């Protein structure tokens, strides 16, 4: 008993003052264990879990409400929308809104556009970030630390500050109304370089050394030894960079002129004007934007959750 308490206190110094942990009661006497036996543990547990389920269930209902509203409104017909009493259900589901959305916007085209942009950014990050991360983790070269800290410091500069000068830069490069200003600056995110360095530094040096002794070239080491060890890292970079690019809004809004080249969030945002009076079409837009992501999330829940978790845990 005492060892367990000691162990705990060692791990969590804050616990030092907690007498209960040390098996003492408030006055510091040895506690009487029989007191705790009045309820059987199981009853307590069952009661407790009942509460947990109840609270979680009700909260989930509240949290899912916007989604419910979205689905409901999407399938409402014009007559039901014009109704003057509140309804939380739907009588005659209609696909009219979806039809209007697909006819009246370039939604499908925009998904393809978004895929192009996000795909290019993801591929870039998957290649360049582990590559740089590997060099920073395992190579030694003059200026390594300085360069690394320079990179890190650029991470502190929020993108919104660079909106104006990058716009002028894109203008001078003739990049307005192309995907270049959306893709190129995002090809190698410093954050993922950092993540890669952390991950790759844990790969044992023996592996690399053995390969070098065998005369393996550096790119080969990277592709055949490092990358295969990096599956979780690649999954994280892939998922995070893809989702980041997929959902990005302000960049496409500034740089894209031709509606045919719009990405999905942009098309969705345009619904406010285009179908300003038609709640069902707006919701159909939201639904079509959210549904594929939800399905992907349902299938790859574990990987996606892990990527997000890793983005936060690595300081």
């Amino acid at each position, binding site marked *: 008993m005492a060892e367990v308490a000691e162990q*705990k206190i060692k*791990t*969590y110094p*804050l616990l030092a003052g907690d007498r209960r942990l040390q098996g003492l009661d408030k006055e510091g006497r040895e506690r009487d264990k029989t007191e705790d036996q009045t309820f059987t543990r199981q009853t307590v547990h069952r009661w407790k879990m009942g509460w947990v389920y109840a609270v*979680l269930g009700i*909260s*989930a209902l509240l*949290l899912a409400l*916007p*989604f419910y509203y979205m689905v409901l409104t999407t399938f409402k017909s*014009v007559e039901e*929308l*014009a109704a*003057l009493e509140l309804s939380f259900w739907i009588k005659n589901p209609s696909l009219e809104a979806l039809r209007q959305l697909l006819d009246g916007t370039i939604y499908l085209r925009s998904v393809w*556009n978004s895929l192009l942009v996000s795909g290019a950014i993801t591929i870039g990050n998957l290649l360049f970030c582990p*590559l*740089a991360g590997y060099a920073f983790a395992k190579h030694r*070269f003059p200026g*390594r630390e300085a360069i690394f800290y320079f990179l890190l410091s*650029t991470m*502190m500069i*929020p*993108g*919104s500050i*660079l*909106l*104006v000068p990058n*716009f002028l*830069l894109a*203008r001078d490069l003739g990049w307005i109304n192309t*995907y*270049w200003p959306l893709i190129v600056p995002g090809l*190698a995110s*410093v954050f993922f370089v950092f993540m890669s360095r952390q991950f790759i530094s844990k790969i044992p*040096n023996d592996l690399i*050394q053995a390969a070098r002794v065998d005369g393996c070239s550096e790119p*080969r080491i990277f592709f055949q030894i490092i990358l295969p060890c990096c599956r979780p890292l690649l999954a994280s970079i892939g998922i995070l960079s893809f989702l980041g690019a997929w*959902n990005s*809004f302000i960049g496409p*809004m*500034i*740089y894209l*002129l031709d509606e045919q*080249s719009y990405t999905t969030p942009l098309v*969705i945002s345009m619904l*406010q*004007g285009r179908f300003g*009076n*038609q709640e069902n079409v*707006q919701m159909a837009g*939201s639904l079509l934007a*959210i549904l594929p992501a939800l399905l992907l*999330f*349902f299938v790859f*829940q574990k990987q996606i*959750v892990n990527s997000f*978790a890793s983005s*936060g*845990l690595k*300081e």
Partner: protein
Amino acid sequence: MRARLNYLRNAPSRKVKMNGFLLSFFRRAMLASLFTLSALGLVSPLKAEPVQFWAVGNGIEDSIMFRELAARFKSESGIDVQVTPLSWGNFGQKYMTSMAAGMPPDAGVANLGSPMEWGSVGGVVDFRKSFGAEFDVLSQQFFPGTLPQFEFRGHLYGIPTELVTAMLYYRQDLFDKLGLKAPKTWSELDRVIQKLEAAGYHFNFGWTRGEQWALYYHTLPFGKSGLYRDAAGEPQLDWLDPAYQEAVLHAIDLWHLHDSFGDGSADRTIGRFLSDEPDQSIGMMVDGNWLAGSIQNLAPGAAEKWNVVPWPKADEGKAVNVIGGTSYVIFEASPRKDAAFAWLRFLNSVPSQQFMIEHRLARVGQASAFNIPPVRGVWSEEQGAFWAKPMLKSAEKVINVARQITDTFVTVESLKGKQDVDHIESKILDRMGTYANELLTSQAEEHNLRRWPYIRALAQGKFPGERESILEALRVRLRAEYAAQTPLALAKVRYAMKSYDEDYAPIVDNLAVYEGKTNVLDQMKWVLALLFLAAAILIATVRPLRRNATSYLFIAVPIALSLVFVLIPMVVSLYLSFTEYHSVLPLASAKWVGLKHYIESFQLSDSDNVIVSIGKTFVYVAITVPLGIVLALMFAALLNNPLKGQRFWRFLYFSPLITSAVSVALIFTQLYRESSLGWLNAFFMKLHLINNPIQFLKDEKTFLYCVMGLAIWHGLAFTILLFLAGLQQIPQQLYKAAEIDGAGWREKFWHISLPGIRPQLIFVAVMGLIGGFQVFEQIYMLGGGSGYFGSKFGPNDAGKTMVPLIYDLGFEQFKMGRASAVAYILFVVIFAFTLVQMRLFRQARPEN
């Protein structure tokens, strides 16, 4: 172990081989990525032969219409026209961007205010100067009142395309029953509203409610346009004129003191208009001229029930129908101006105009509309056969009204700086709206009534004098607002006029000269290129560097990107922040103004000052971050129990993670509807938490909280996820041991869970703070940013936190210098917080 470490430390000095494989790999990789990327670049606009025409509209239908017209035009003249659709929501920013990039279309559709703004910086052509006599012939076709708004300093930058105006829709059957007549003057209007309300029918102000640009309906009958030029040519304001203030007060009365529904959905408004249910139905409403088709579409059998009359005349003023509408412009950079002009002339011909009218009316549902043609010929006697067509039947009533009022159309001359003045007045009106709403609600509550029963009671004369006292309070407030804002607005417009005369006009007249000049920033490119070259040469020649060429190559991409897209832009931005620069003009025209932008940014009287923005940002952060953490902690602790169906629960709680802010904001915009049919209001009212619907997004006091609600909901998933991941790393034995010792959940939570996820807590707190400074999409969407009238960040700019401010200055107002200055101030603020963040992180990691 030690030996290995030493070995590794020596390892780098070993020469890393750069063999054939490496080279060929990189060649292949570069080729592959170049190929992919150039495939992506295919969307760049085709600058081919045809006349490029941007058709701004709200549906795809308008571009279909213009394409059909283009086909006719081609068979007539042989000129190809390519029509590209564009939305009203962001058309201004798109045009500006295209002009700045030197790649505008040849011609396009715009709103009414833009032609002058663009013309004054040399973006669009002066029709009079460019097309002389030909233009004079064309201009004879238009109603005379429609042209002044495109004029500035003798230039004329646009021509009208179609007109819209407000009309009064009323229920004929109801009016007959109540013995009412359609109002012809304002005093009649007021009386009719009172009688309707007394009988339990609403008066609804739909279109243009609360919109500053629609004030002309109320002020021009008295000859007051707000901003005008006096005899000496100096810009002046009518704001302090009692007659002007009375007109504005009447507008506020009509907008806010009659419980307009704000349903958002036109279907529902029309549903109310045709309903017979007292307390729910609308007896009379103000709306635009396009509505007839929709009413007809929704209730084809109800044609007998309703009627339309023109906007009533002021009792002692002129009959004035002021218009909104759209215009055509031709861009200065266009190489095909004559072809573009021919196309516009074709569009304004009578057959084309008739084609447009039919095309618009033939659309289904809400897309069906009747817009008033500005060409006189369409309305002439000879066209009687056209107007008698059966397909025009659905809009017959509106057409008849339009016919009566075309001669009374009036617009006023635009002035440079009008945008600034309008913006200030718009904020005044937002504040007045909030105030009117508060007054009415608090009065109602004093009588223990909801808003609508109170308004009914007022109309029935139950509380004599109260309406007058509310109006008096509004009058006092309005007077004070105008008195406080007039000096600032005058200063802004005078500065704009002066800087036009001194800076822009000379540049615009000598564009060619400026285009030839270079600027400091142009030299930057060479410096950058030299830097890269130097780095490459250094690595290739200096021995210790050359040995590590592979390593440098591996890190080259992130380094190059950081240099080009972060470091250099930071320097550029610093330079720009000391200059006055309009991005449509050549960079050489940037004018050094020293600290002007920084000083102005910190002046509280300036409408775009950073102090208020930073304050809002802090409020936002101070509420979203702690609340988000507490909620997430709660859910994470609950989810950390051994639940059945883990996957299901996590799916439920984590799903917002992957949704985009834009689509979620769209949903919330509807949940936040200010009508009692908005879901959130409906819930609160069902639970008896509120008596009157809250004006969520329409009230400056609640707007930012709405954004926060959305942000907390959207951010919760990520925070829960992090906390849960942290909680799961805490060894279970700790809890077991604590349980054995009799610790309850409270002790376990405070002494084990919370300390266990300390790093996550700090991470979330700091990231929330940084993220709060970056919030944009949510505010843009909830503020109706992509709606009809361009970006607005909530009523009275309630949601103008830092990034919206930068965006607005840079990409809506195109004041690049000022935007850069604000961006730099934001940078300093964020930098300070990043330092705090790093300190906290250091504390968060006690070991290693």
